[in-house]
Structures are given as C-alpha cells and as structure tokens.
C-alpha cells in the first residue's frame, strides 16, 4: 500500500467508513508487531500492544497532522505505548492508600518475559533486549523499517546527527552483547549494517 492509498483510506475513515481502516491495518499490523515485539520482548504483550496502538490511532485521528507519514505517526504512538508499558512495570505504584498500615504494594510484570522462551532463544533478540528502550527503538526503526535519520528526527524531536551517533552506539553494543552471548567471532557484519 503506497502513501497515496494510505491517505485515501484515512480520508474515508475520517468520513465515517471504519472498514477502510482495515486497509491501514493490513499495511501496518506486521511492521508494528515486529516493532512492539522487539521493544517489549514478549509475543503476547506485543499482540495486545498492536491492538492498542491501532485503537489509539483511531481515537486520535483528528490530531494527526501530515508533517510526517501516517506510518511514522503510528510508530510514534507505538513507541510511547511500549515506553509506558515498560515504565509501568518499573514504577512501584501504590494503587490504594489502604489503611491497615499497608503503604506500598507494587505490581510486577517483568516475569512475563521469562515465559517467552521463544524470544530468549534467539541471540539477536537477547542482545536487543539488553539495549535501552531508546536504543531498541532506533535500532528496530533503522534496521527493519529503513527509516531515515531525518524522518526519525522529526518524529522524536532530536537532531539527525545525534540519532546517527546513538544508532551507531546501539549497534556496537548489540554486537558486543551477541559476541559475549555466543562467545565466538560471530556477528562481525553487524556493525556494517548501516
């Protein structure tokens, strides 16, 4: 689906034809799943996240401005959604101010990653999981989506040169993690991917 077809579908959705959003889902669901899967490191979480991202995009269509492509805008929603999920797991929230002297009770989600052995069986995935959220975001968008630094700069309000440096650092880290994980002379081609 090219840019014009996407914009046309968007126009019809805005006019009330929800089924046209199906075309956008067709075009975006797999890339978004790949993105969320590697951001979150968990298949089920990623599946839920993609649905949430589409629903959020649908809810917020009125706020979409054409300064970036629709797909880039959806990645931004996905980024913030994943970031929030990851932060929520970290944030030791108190849910209620219960009396009985119980002042801090937290919820934990990190163990979900343990369940996804499929993810942890792949050395590349393991290395990516060790990167920071920002680094993972950059790496996926560059490697999988071939997004340019200029576009990413618009999206994340950062200078292209800064993003390039961050990306190169992330690649280097990823490569070294993989070397450590596999203990061999593998993955040397990684640093040359971009």
């Amino acid at each position, binding site marked *: 689906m090219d840019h014009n077809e996407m914009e046309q579908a968007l126009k019809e959705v805005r006019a009330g034809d929800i089924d046209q959003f199906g075309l956008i889902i067709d075009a975006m669901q797999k890339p978004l799943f790949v993105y969320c899967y590697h951001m979150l490191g968990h298949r089920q979480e990623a599946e839920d996240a993609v649905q949430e991202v589409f629903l959020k995009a649908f809810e917020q269509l009125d706020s979409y401005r054409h300064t970036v492509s629709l797909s880039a805008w959806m990645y931004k929603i996905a980024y913030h959604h994943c970031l929030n999920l990851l932060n929520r797991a970290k944030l030791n929230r108190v849910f209620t101010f219960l009396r009985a002297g119980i002042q801090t009770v*937290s919820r934990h989600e990190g163990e979900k990653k343990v369940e996804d052995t499929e993810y942890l069986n792949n050395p590349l995935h393991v290395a990516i999981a060790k990167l920071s959220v920002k680094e993972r975001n950059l790496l996926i968008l560059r490697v999988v989506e071939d997004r340019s630094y200029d576009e990413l700069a618009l999206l994340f309000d950062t200078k292209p040169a800064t993003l390039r440096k961050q990306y190169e650092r992330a690649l280097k880290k990823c490569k070294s993690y993989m070397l450590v994980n596999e203990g061999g002379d593998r993955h040397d081609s990684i640093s040359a991917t971009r």
Partner: protein
Amino acid sequence: MTRSQQPDDWKQQLTAAADDFDVKEQVLQKMKEQKMRSEGKQVKKRLGLVVAAILVFGGTSAYAAMKVYELKNEKGEAVVKVQQTATPQPQSKSGNWKSFQDVRDSLKQGEGAAVYMAGPDNPKKRVSFTYIPVIHESTRPLQKEVGSFYEVPAELAGGYKFVNGHVNYPFDYSQAELFEEMYKEAENEKKQIVVRKVSPKSHFDRVYTLYKGSEGKERDGDVYIAITNFEGVKYIEEEAGQDAIVEKVKVQNYEGLYIAGKLIDGTEEKVVKVYQEDKNRLIEVVAMNPVLTKKDLLMIAQNLK
C-alpha cells in the same frame, strides 16, 4: 549469524516473528464498538487486552473506558490519565491478602522482598515486590531524605499536623533468574508462597506523608500526601469506577483532577491530583477522613510547596 551473513539477515530474523500475525478483525470489531459507545449505545464488552490489575491476586474483569480525563504537559502530552470505567473493583482473596501481610510483617524497616504466590489464582505467575519503608515521625529526617525534591510541611492548611512520612524505593523488576528460582522452589517443595529478600534501587520514586487534624477523628490520620517523582515516567494511567466523580480543577495555576470514589474495602476516598511539570512531580492529596470536602483538599493542595 556468522561473518558470511549479510545485513539483511538481521532484518529477516527480526521480521520473522510477524509471519502469521493478524489482528485485523479484532481491531475493527473494537473500533466499531468504540464508535457505538461514543454514539451513546452502551456496549459492555470484554476488551481482552492487558489492563492493569491490582496485586498478584487481584483478578478482575476489565471493560472499555467510558470516559478518559487527562492532565497534560506543555507539549500537550497526557501525563496523568484517569479512565472512568465500568470495571468491577478487583477483590482480593482474604487468604492471599493475609499471606502477603504476613510477609510484610516479617520484614524490618528498610527491607524489601519479592513474593510469589503459586496456584490457580496466579495463572500468569506474577511476582509482587514489597518494601517496608523507614518511617519518620518528624519532618526533619524525612526532609533530609527527600532533599529539594519536595518541601515537607509540618502543618497543612486547615491545621492538619504531620504524623509520619516515608520514602518509597522501586525495585529491579526484571530478575528472570530470581523468578525462575522462586517458581522452581514453589513447584519442588509444593509451597504456596515463596519469599526472597531483595534490595530496592537507590533512587526513590515516591514520598508519602500523613497528617492528622486536631479533632483526630481518624485513628491513623486524616490526610495523605503522596508526591511521585516523574523522572523517567511518560504517564500514569489509573481507573476510577463508573460511580466515581472526576472533575478538572485548578491548583496553583496548574491543572488538576479531583476524584471521589470508593476503595476496594468500601472506604470513601477523595483525591486531588496536580501535575507540576516544572518540578517533574505529581502531587496527590488524599482524604482518609470522609469529613474532608473537595474544598478542604483544594486548599491543602494550594498551599503545598
């Protein structure tokens, strides 16, 4: 991947996971339901998505939000979201609750623990963390611990005096090896509950203070104030029951929310939430005494520094 592999191999490996992924019908269905709801047709339908549940044993049914209230930062991004939902309040099983409290009772101040409760009530094998804070009975040591993040008042507007306060420290929640050990111990030794002492991180995420009025109607105190450190937090999302009152308010030139609802034990709770972007924090003033009114809470929040 080996030396001979091309860069595209990475892309291939990363994209392979999506081969059979398809949620189009589910998403479209939900969108249609959303549209129907917005048109006033109440469709109470399970979302089936991961929605925040309380505690390891807090089973609940989650329904789509009926209305969302937000506090935004200067960029217009929502930092506090309160969803008014038809979600039933989660009910904790009393046995689980008691076990959890027993664990807490076994800890000293400043100690933390990871708690895994095995069994059908915890199908996702969640591990909870709990921390027993060091309780300060005067403002000076608490002020020392929180530094310039928040000025701890000795007295609030309305004459409520400081009773005690503490600081909360989060944990590292991604301890895969620890969780595996706990699962194994529960399985091998047929344990219902497995506890491990763990240390929290060194940077605090919240400060709590409790105040009491001169009438002293409440046993523990009348007003709680919690200050959340927003460092590294994009936004906080919470749910309010469908019967809760949620209103926008103005405090110290910041936009805030007033929420009045009921806790899971039936206690009435009134809260004023104020997000202060310049100070990177969220202030919550919570009335534990039903006598306090919205006006009282706003006055207290208005005078905090």
